[in-house]
């Protein structure tokens, strides 16, 4: 019998993979992709709760999260393009203008 706890465990693992991607990798595009993984993990939790209660409001909230994630990706990738135009690099170690 599938319980919400199983789904939460999966979501936890997916989120952890996203966290380690953000922390370990230094390519800015890959960091954005890892953020997508984490957002998906949050959505899985929302859907699992909506399924367990059962209450459809959680699915509506997950829909909003997807919309916000789409906006975040568009703006993030636009920033990366502007960054690449200025520094010719997407390595986050090279982005140190504000560092002293």
């Amino acid at each position, binding site marked *: *019998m*599938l*319980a919400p*706890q199983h*789904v939460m*465990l*999966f979501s936890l693992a*997916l989120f*952890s*993979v*996203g*966290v*380690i*991607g953000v*922390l*370990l990798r230094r390519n800015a*595009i*890959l960091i*954005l*992709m*890892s953020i*997508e*993984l984490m957002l*998906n993990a949050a*959505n*899985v939790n929302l*859907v699992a*709760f*909506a*399924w*367990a*209660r*059962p209450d*459809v*409001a959680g*699915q*509506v*909230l*997950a*829909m*909003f999260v*997807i*919309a*916000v*994630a*789409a*906006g975040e*990706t*568009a*703006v993030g*990738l*636009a920033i*990366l*393009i*502007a960054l*690449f*135009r200025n520094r010719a*690099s*997407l*390595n986050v170690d090279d982005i140190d203008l504000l560092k002293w």
Partner: protein
Amino acid sequence: MDGQMLMFAALAGVALASAVMVVTRRNLVHSALYLIVTLFAVGAIYVLLRAELLGVVQVLVYAGGIMVLFLFVILLVERPAVAAPGKPRRVHVAASSLMTALVAGLLAWRFLAGGPDRAGDTAALSAQGGNLEAVAMTMFRDYLLPFEAVSVLLLVALVGAIVLARSKA
């Protein structure tokens, strides 16, 4: 172990395995393709959890829209960006692993403390062969204001992305 549990285990395994591949591949295009596999598996899990509409939206918006955007940008900037990967330093790896373990441990602590039990008849979520109607009713009655706010946010993101990404000429 019933059928739903088996399906969930298989889909979760696929999603997690390709998520690990996303994070470990050197080639960005490979990462993006593995991310598409993860997104599809997560969409299938949505369908399994009686969120059919969300599963479709996941495939349309994520696997369709967002990943195309990612691939476009990767192809746009790939060549010089991939030249200098470099191995992460050991202290960096250790600190990252520690941080991840900390975050995962805190989340697991919260998760194991509670979480809802299955309360009612989950089949009620998709009574008429899908939950489009239920989601639409909730979204446009109870969550109309957040819905409008999100649409304004998307418009702002659209304009912002164009302004940021266009060339100076």
